[in-house]
């Protein structure tokens, strides 16, 4: 009997202690969460500040850009945008058209050729599969600089320099192994029974690709499309080498022209055009954030 009573009090006390610990933990967790948010908000501001600064500077009068830290311009100089658009020997209308042509064709090329290859690697049986797959993965590692010179000689001999062909044709030849890899990962997850059932019904592999695999892979296609769109849009090295005529310049090459005139105080216009060049990327990012994030998490892209 006696032991029982002490037992009770001990248990009560333990329960009370446990309760207090739990309360303390909750309080501490909440405080930790607040600190975390404060830290993360501060960090977000630091991360975004360069972009805000770029945008603010694109609206400021020239003399204000480097003299004050205040982001708010004393007056809004929208003519940086209108004047910047026409500041170079050709108007930015031309450069945006050029970039759009290259980008659209490249994205189509990437999607078609890479999904073809990925379908073969992920779903078909054939001689040399492992060897080819290993070779494909190895091309992921090869820096563009290593193949650059022979490719240039090749395209020069074909008479393709100063056309968009050297930028677009390789994308129709599945030259960006990254997208093959991404799509292989996705195709492999689709249930095999689908192919088998279709096969029994007499579907050819071509039909299976077109009628089953492709429609089921829209998320992977979307991810690949967005990434290839953004990368082609920002591509600098290949256009730098292959496009010599200012008429055929893409937007990044045009932006670089501003740097040659840096002395002539056209910073505002240069920043304005820089902002515009980022707008498509930011818009696509906001619109397709989910696809982008999932794409990276599953495939581990750059």
């Amino acid at each position: 009997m006696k032991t029982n009573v002490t037992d009770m009090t001990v248990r009560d006390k333990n329960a009370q202690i446990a309760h207090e610990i739990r309360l303390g933990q909750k309080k501490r967790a909440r405080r930790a969460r607040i600190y975390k948010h404060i830290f993360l908000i501060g960090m977000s501001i630091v991360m975004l500040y360069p972009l805000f600064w770029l945008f603010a500077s694109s609206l400021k009068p020239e003399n204000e850009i480097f003299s004050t830290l205040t982001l708010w311009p004393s007056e809004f100089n929208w003519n940086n945008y209108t004047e910047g658009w026409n500041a170079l020997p050709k108007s930015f209308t031309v450069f945006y058209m050029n970039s759009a042509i290259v980008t659209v064709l490249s994205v189509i090329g990437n999607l078609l050729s890479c999904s073809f290859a990925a379908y073969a690697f992920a779903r078909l049986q054939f001689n040399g599969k492992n060897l080819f797959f290993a070779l494909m993965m190895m091309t992921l590692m090869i820096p563009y600089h290593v193949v650059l010179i022979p490719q240039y000689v090749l395209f020069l001999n074909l008479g393709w320099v100063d056309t968009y062909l050297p930028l677009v044709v390789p994308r129709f030849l599945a030259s960006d192994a990254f997208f093959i890899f991404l799509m292989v990962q996705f195709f492999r997850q689709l249930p095999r029974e689908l192919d088998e059932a279709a096969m029994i019904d007499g579907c050819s592999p071509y039909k299976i690709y077109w009628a089953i695999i492709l429609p089921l892979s829209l998320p992977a296609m979307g991810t690949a499309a967005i990434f290839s769109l953004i990368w082609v849009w920002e591509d600098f090295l290949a256009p730098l080498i292959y496009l010599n005529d200012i008429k055929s310049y893409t937007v990044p090459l045009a932006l670089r022209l501003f740097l040659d005139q840096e002395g002539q105080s056209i910073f505002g216009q240069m920043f304005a055009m820089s902002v515009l060049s980022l707008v498509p990327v930011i818009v696509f990012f906001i619109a397709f954030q989910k696809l982008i994030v999932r794409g990276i998490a599953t495939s581990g892209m750059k």
Partner: protein
Amino acid sequence: MKKFFRRNAPAYVFLSPWFVGFFLLALGPILASMYLSFTRYDMVGDPRWVGLDNYEYMFERDRRFWKALEVTFTYVALAVPARLAMALGVAMLLDKGLRTIGLYRAIFYLPSLLGSSIAIAILWRQLFSVDGVVNQVLAKFGIEGAAWISDPNTSLYTLVILAMWQFGSPMLIFLAGLRGIPRDLYEAAEIDGTSKRRQFFRITLPLLAPVIFFNLVLQTIEAFKTFSSAFIISNGTGAPADSLLFYTVYLFNEAFKFFRMGYASALAWVLLLIIGFFTAVTFFTSKYWVHYENERD
């Protein structure tokens, strides 16, 4: 023969664009650049065989080659660990105890998408110019800033900071990895009174090793390939005083400014070997520090 054809035809049809691309744009050029690396070639005449001359010149007399190696290696050694540490740190902050991380994740990832664009390189030049934002902020704290981009002692660090700013994609991969670690491991450790520090070293790091390995390989290759930002920030030359002479920038100039295609091909082959070497080393050492969870299956 017929059987072979029937079995393989569809796959080879699907692979045909890739085959053409692989031979014409990857394998062919790699072999061609090996051949060119033993020649002198200015694109006007035919390539002239010079044996090992290019390599001899590179290793024994070309001081800019060694400078380019030094700049690139320094950059890789600073930028990759800095970026991965940022990525892991932020991923761990986001992983636990917060309910809404979507917005933070988006904000931290955005620079990764924009980072290699020319607009950002232009912006970076101005942020770190003598009268740029960075120096203005430092002046507020009474610190006299450096010339950053135009000072050979500091210019490389501006690019390291640019690399750190783009920690978003390894962060997303770390986040996915952290999600895969069972929560009860931490709960058990908590009950045993294990300190947070110890939990990090005994649970998080070992279980995250495959992901760290993956990120390390990817980011190292990526860092060796850095071009556009270095090219723009250094005015296309590697200036000031060759402090931004990234290997890729040097190679580009040798090839497309001076049209020393043979020599540039030799440079390209050395770059390929360097990257191959680093990837191989990471792979071979990985078995000592990367343990996959389902290894025993």
